């Protein structure tokens, strides 16, 4: 059976910390950073990268289109 591992790259400087991607992630991968970006927003980051399947839900819901999603078949 195919097994996928994913990874996302958030453009932290353009992220507005809206939290929508965090809520949309079915695997609990993302959370808002304690640190802020240049605009003062707590940007989204992969807190649990090992759980990412590359489903792209986070990318779809991001209003600012700052998430890039990758997915690799590891079997």
């Amino acid at each position, binding site marked *: 059976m195919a097994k996928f*591992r*994913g*990874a996302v*790259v958030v453009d932290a400087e*353009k992220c*507005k*910390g*809206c*939290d*929508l991607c965090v*809520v*949309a992630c079915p695997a609990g991968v993302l959370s808002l950073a304690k640190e802020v970006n240049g605009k003062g*927003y707590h940007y989204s980051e*992969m807190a649990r*990268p*090992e759980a990412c399947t*590359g489903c*792209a*839900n986070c*990318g*779809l*819901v*991001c*209003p*600012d*289109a*700052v*998430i*890039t*999603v*990758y*997915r*690799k078949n590891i079997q």
Partner: protein
Amino acid sequence: MTVETIDIIREENLVYRKTPALTDNVMHYCPGCSHGVVHKLVAEVIEETGIREQTIGVSPVGCSVLAYNYLDIDWAEAAHGRAPAVATGISRLHPEKYVFTYQGDGDLASIGTAEVMHACNRGENIVIIFVNNAIYGMTGGQMAPTTLVGQVTSTTPYGRDVKLNGFPMKITELLAQLDGTGFVTRQAVHTPLAIRKAKNAIRKAFENTKKDKGTSFIEIVGTCSSGWKMTPVDANRWMVENMFPKYPLGDIKDI
């Protein structure tokens, strides 16, 4: 970043990234604003159907007044509410182009009611994208025609009162009654599934332009977290609980 993650972040594993039809400008919208998602979907459809050079947008007055900074296509800017009239002129002069308006509920259902009614009644071969967030976002959260009964806004501090303010206007259902509209639908962009459906509807609307099927009208029920004074996540929840019963999602007309 673990070694494994670095191994996954490679071009050949790419599944989702910002479409090139969106510019690199940072959108001025508040965090979580539905306008951003709707812009993205329109841009993706335009890019994926290869009509970037043939598409002309008409932007409104409202928070999306600067939409022309974000979608890398040709644009015209209309006076408040007049986008369907401007789009009529463009579409009649350039019948081979894909012409769409992008409008909020204050712009479309209040000051621009006459223009949208008559453009739809004439069956202009245009797409109308209508973002209904039940408020005037840009000017500080005043009541719109679509504001719900009891909804608190800066001009209805005790909630919308039908005796004083009338009823929420379901303008999409009204426009579906007109013989000029071919495709009328109501969508939302709060979940990945809703976003996929909304994108399909937008794609279909642009395809209808090619088939000269009359006016295609897409309402997107959206949030205005700043005007509603909620977090974006809470605003989505509030929308599902309060907006959807009044503004149910789905196709209203498809000929």
